[in-house]
């Protein structure tokens, strides 16, 4: 077991180092980097099938144990099997296959996602209203004021921009200076965090692929 985990770690680290160095030395390692990334894409494709099996297994277990929402789980697995079967049996060019997929996407997936989007809009407004009840500090007040001000400034009205074209744009640019600077600061911090996390994985200190 230990030997397997050491070998898998060695392979993972070597692949990571080659891909990373391939960015800096494309002439020497570029081809190998592309090959390794192609393999990674194939493995990720297979991982989707494994993931869907996991999803179906979780839903079936819910149904088997009579847990809350188990019936919905069964419905999900049946829909999944039908869609998967139709996709396998009927080729993408087949008109019946295309019709089924159109019905599945335009009749089920799009309306459901649109409904969730609508719920999301209400949820966001509700969360903003409750922000000051949850936490009263300077940053929360500034956050709310800027958000409301920005929404008012970009709000379409029958009379055009509320403060007039130039004043409105100047105000938006003024607010954008601060929000843009803040966003860049946050992104720099995230980039540094990502860099160090990647290095830990390359050094084999963090081994998310198991055996650690």
């Amino acid at each position, binding site marked *: 077991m230990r030997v397997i985990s050491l070998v898998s770690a060695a392979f993972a680290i070597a692949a990571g180092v080659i891909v990373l160095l391939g960015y800096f030395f494309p002439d020497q390692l570029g081809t190998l980097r592309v090959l390794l990334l192609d393999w990674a894409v194939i493995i990720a494709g297979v991982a989707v099938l494994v993931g869907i099996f996991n999803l179906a297994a979780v839903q079936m277990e819910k149904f088997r144990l009579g847990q809350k929402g188990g019936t919905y789980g069964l419905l999900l697995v049946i829909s999944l099997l039908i869609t998967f079967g139709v996709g396998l049996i009927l080729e993408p060019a087949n008109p019946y296959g295309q019709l089924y997929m159109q019905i599945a996407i335009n009749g089920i997936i799009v309306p459901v996602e649109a409904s969730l989007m609508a719920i999301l809009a209400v949820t966001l407004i509700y969360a903003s209203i409750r922000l000051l009840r949850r936490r009263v500090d300077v940053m929360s007040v500034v956050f709310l004021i800027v958000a409301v001000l920005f929404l008012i400034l970009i709000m379409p009205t029958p009379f055009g921009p509320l403060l007039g074209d130039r004043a409105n744009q100047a105000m938006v640019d003024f607010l954008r200076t601060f929000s843009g600077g803040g966003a860049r600061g946050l992104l720099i911090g995230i980039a540094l965090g*990502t860099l160090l996390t990647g290095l830990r994985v390359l050094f084999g200190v963090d081994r998310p692929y198991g055996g650690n």
Partner: protein
Amino acid sequence: MLALSLLVLSAILLVGFTFWRRRTPASFRLIGAYERLNRSVGLAVENGTRLHISLGRGSLLTARGGSALAGLAMLRRLAERTSVSDRPPIVTSGDASLSILSQDTLQSGYRAAGAEEQYRFTTGRLTGLTPFSYAAGVLSTIHDENISANIVIGDLGTESALLAEASDRENTSLIAASDDLSAQSVFFASSQDPLIGEELFAAGAYVGAGASHEASLHVQDILRWLIILAILLGSLLKIVGAPI
């Protein structure tokens, strides 16, 4: 050349600080969310409830995978700490590769704690492959699985508002961080102790994942100061009209 130099410098600093931190453990500033996280872990074990850890939907084939890897490092430690619990934590994700890695990480955590028989592969779940299907799958976990704390760390978008709302409705703790700016603003508005920016990557250090995580924070601080100095120097040169 600059990028490669920065990478080599970071690697050298990381190795150096890791050895240093093994001898002298660090003390960190207080971050409310991580204090609550450590309390929630203890409470979940004591009162027989579950932790729910959501790793987002950051694909490991893109730059968004960094936050997912940070979440996995934290998960490894949490799995070890909760291995004595009757109810193992549930891990959800919106990317297939990430869900497989979360299962591996859970198993490694239990194995390290000597409780590998506790591991069930259905506790590491793929809930959906699109933002809203992922969120919809996570919602049922938050509502139906006797959860006492939700730890959401990874790459998410505005759909995170649905997760925060569900957590609030169930009156459970929410510890949330994301590398996405829109999700950060959502969490700022809907979480008690929001984690902002690179605080996401401090999760491992604050749950006791080891010297290398503590060293990472030191290296991030050093690199941040270097970037600040570079920005100031660049501004100064621009002001005096030097060609840059």
